[in-house]
């Protein structure tokens, strides 16, 4: 264990609201985000639980149709923009990016803090919508429903998302500049950990795509308030234009949401396999390929919208192309395990579950990219299952993997491995029970966003609702044992997993400016096969004094 005194770490640098709320330390800003995002995650999750309880029976007996529509709209809006988009970048990314490249902070520390305040400011608008009476447009804000017909608090929700977009852009710019300018001596691009590559790719998408979302949301508000008519056919506008604008952002946004997760598992899998990441360059470059191709596939959300069938053919082709880099990554992650020394700590379990769930979600994506199949399953539960497998089974599972992997670095504490493994397994089982039946429902023709449904679908809905309860337990468990570990957990050593990244070479928790001496990098990333790393690995039982 490190001898650097407890007072010399970033957590000891002043306490009280002022020291936290006015901090420019990227590690503390990460905590500000972590706490706010956790609150939003459980708020969005509570809406989801209510949705699943309502759907346990075919009739609409728990809530009215208007309330149900608000539940799924708010669930989507909160989960996408107030949890998933910022999730890994704003928390783990904020904390780790400077540490991983041997920097003292992000390039613009004050911009980083400002991004959190912008995030909170925007979230007030969204929360106002929740409290004032909800939004009933779905998270997609399709026109003319959102502009002319919806009676919820659409404008404040749209403004909230619009404002939060600026915080995303700020984070993106900060990350891009940081990666370009603050890498430690010797840390060339192809020595960067994949997590840094994916943060970089994510940041590019954030900066390039979010302005388009901002433009389309402002147009929604202008159209709602002033009736400018850009999406109104009676005034010469076109409702489909909104879908083009919206998906031009929102499809790349899917990659904002999944690339960071890919980065996390690319760190975790090699560490617990004691092997270098298989095909490092292919994984790094496929992250960039995903970021670029992700901008060219938005029309696959519009195959049956009235868009020309031949435009559909082009978008289908490009969508199959974007599947390739993801497939390459899956193969590389799998091969990383080969001839390793594999152990199954909590974060490794989460990473392996990510691999399974991401694969099952990604394969379903092939069905949706295939035009004739999409015509049948578009706007059904098949789509719902697909994106939850990617966004929740993929991204949230990776987020949990990362949170457990770097928790000792974030907090200087170890959590209970036993509870961690239980939570990971419960989450995996609950997730599949919740969402696998939805694939079947979608193939059967069950449309999404239905408050009531024909009784023959009930069997699958009951399975799904039961799974949601299990899943909720899986997500609540870490809230308790991680919080408990903050106060009672064993002190963490500097490098409990014997991992190779630079972040593990400083103390746990790190000092205020990350490194006592400027690190110099002489190895490639993931040098698990090189000599000089054979230390004792952390044993929680010994450290806890049992």
């Amino acid at each position, binding site marked *: 264990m490190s001898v650097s005194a407890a007072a010399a770490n970033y957590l000891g640098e002043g306490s009280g609201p002022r020291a936290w709320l006015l901090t420019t330390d990227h590690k503390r800003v990460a905590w500000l985000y972590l706490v706010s995002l956790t609150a939003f995650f459980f708020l969005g999750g509570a809406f989801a639980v209510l949705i699943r309880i309502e759907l346990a029976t075919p009739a*609409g007996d728990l809530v009215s*149709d*208007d309330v149900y529509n608000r539940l799924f709209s708010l669930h989507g809006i909160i989960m996408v923009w107030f949890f998933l988009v910022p999730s890994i970048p704003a928390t783990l990314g904020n904390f780790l990016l400077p540490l991983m490249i041997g920097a003292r902070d992000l390039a613009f520390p004050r911009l980083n803090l400002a991004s959190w305040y912008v995030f909170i400011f925007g979230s007030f608008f969204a929360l106002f919508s929740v409290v004032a009476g909800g939004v009933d447009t*779905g998270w997609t804000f*399709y026109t*003319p*429903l959102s502009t002319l*017909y919806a009676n919820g608090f659409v404008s404040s929700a749209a403004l909230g998302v619009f404002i939060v977009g600026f915080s995303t852009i700020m984070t993106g710019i900060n990350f891009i500049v940081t990666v370009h300018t603050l890498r430690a001596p010797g840390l060339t691009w192809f020595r960067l950990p994949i997590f840094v590559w994916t943060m970089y790719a994510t940041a590019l998408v954030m900066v390039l795509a979010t302005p388009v979302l901002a433009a389309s949301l402002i147009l929604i508000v202008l159209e709602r308030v002033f009736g400018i008519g850009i999406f109104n056919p*009676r005034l010469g506008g076109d409702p489909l234009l909104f879908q083009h604008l919206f998906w031009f952002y929102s499809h790349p946004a899917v990659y904002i949401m999944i690339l960071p997760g890919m980065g996390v598992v690319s760190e975790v899998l090699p560490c617990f396999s004691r092997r270098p*990441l*298989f*095909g490092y*360059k*292919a994984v790094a470059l496929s992250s960039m390929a995903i970021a670029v191709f992700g901008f060219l596939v938005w029309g696959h959300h519009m195959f049956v*919208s*009235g868009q020309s*069938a031949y435009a559909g*053919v082009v978008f*289908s082709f490009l969508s199959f192309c974007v*599947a*390739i880099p993801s*497939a*390459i990554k899956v193969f590389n992650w*799998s*091969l*990383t*395990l*080969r*001839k*390793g*020394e*594999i*152990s199954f700590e909590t974060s490794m379990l989460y990473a392996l579950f990510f691999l399974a769930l991401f*694969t*099952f979600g990604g*394969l*379903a994506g*092939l*069905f949706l*990219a*295939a*035009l*004739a*199949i999409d*015509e*049948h399953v*578009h*706007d059904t539960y098949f789509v719902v299952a697909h994106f939850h497998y990617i966004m929740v089974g993929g991204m949230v599972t990776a987020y949990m993997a990362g949170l457990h992997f770097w928790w000792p670095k974030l907090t200087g504490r170890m959590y209970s491995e036993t509870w961690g493994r239980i939570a990971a397994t419960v989450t995996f089982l609950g997730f599949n029970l919740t969402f696998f039946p939805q694939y079947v429902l979608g*193939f*059967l*023709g069950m*449309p*999404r966003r239905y*408050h*009531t*449904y024909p009784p*023959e*679908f009930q*069997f699958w809905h009951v399975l799904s609702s039961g799974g949601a309860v299990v899943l909720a337990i899986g997500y609540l468990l870490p809230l308790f044992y991680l919080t408990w570990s903050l106060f009672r957990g064993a002190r963490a050593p500097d490098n409990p997993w014997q991992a190779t990244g630079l972040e593990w070479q400083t103390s746990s928790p790190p000092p205020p400016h990350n490194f006592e001496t400027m690190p110099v990098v002489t190895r490639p990333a*993931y040098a698990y096969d090189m000599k000089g790393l054979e230390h004792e690995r952390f044993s929680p039982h010994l450290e806890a004094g049992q």
Partner: protein
Amino acid sequence: MSFGIPFFPQQASSAAGSVDALFYTLLAFAIALGLSLTFLVVGYAVKYRVGSPAGRTGERARSLPLELTWTIASLVIAFIFFGWGAVLFVRRDHPPPNAIEIAGLGKQWMWEFRHPGGQREINELHVPVGRAVVVSLASQDVIHSFFVPAFRVKQDAVPGRTTHVWFIATEPGRYHLFCAQYCGTQHSEMGGWVTAMAPEQYASWLESQGEGETLAASGEKLFQALGCSGCHGNSSKVRAPSLAGIFGRPVALANQQTVIADERYLRDSILVPNKEIAAGYEPVMPSFDGLVDEGELQMLLAYLKSLSPREPAKNEAVR
């Protein structure tokens, strides 16, 4: 079906079998790949667990031949499924000739259908088995989506334009009709049933509904009532283009461009007449926006189409 639990959707249209063939092939591929990866990862996890006796010599963290192989294999497989799906899909644009054309109108929260003979039904659609049916879709308010799972067809109804979906029912029966695009409060109530019937039963059903006037005839009455015929009629004093045979024909515009007079053009010319002025005419036509609703617009379009001899320039009917 087993124990009343549905696993597969019914197949009741000419497209269902071919779409399902693609679906099940892709499913078989996905299961095969998913299972192989699962066996691989679980196998590695067991074989190379910490402290296992398995040999670890000769390990490599890269292999160009292997990486090239799986990249190329993925590309080839992806392109096969892309092509298969695309070929089935572009059939949407090519309904068989002599299809029955039914006008479908979506509005919050119901579907209204009108048969060529003028028979009108709400949230019910009767169609004959074995004959192609084109439903031309419009929306009175927000975007809706016409979805019949048993037929494997879906098409959004978008305000401000006409879209089409076609199918040939193959099995008599009653099938769910859903609205698939979220459309507001009672979205989940917006649906009903499609009843596919043997042709002779369909004929007698049509008869039992009473032979109303055809859509085109209703359109012609509107054409008179709204005063369209005053200018577009043969004996008119104001110089306006004749509409005989207009549908599907190219129209020269004042701005030197040429457009095909499809449903989009005709609809816009009624609602936003100054958008595309026919060459050689003054822009004097008033807008009928607000004077005709979507249902009346469908009647007018049916009438204008009826002025053209059958089968205009091929395929233009469904653009």
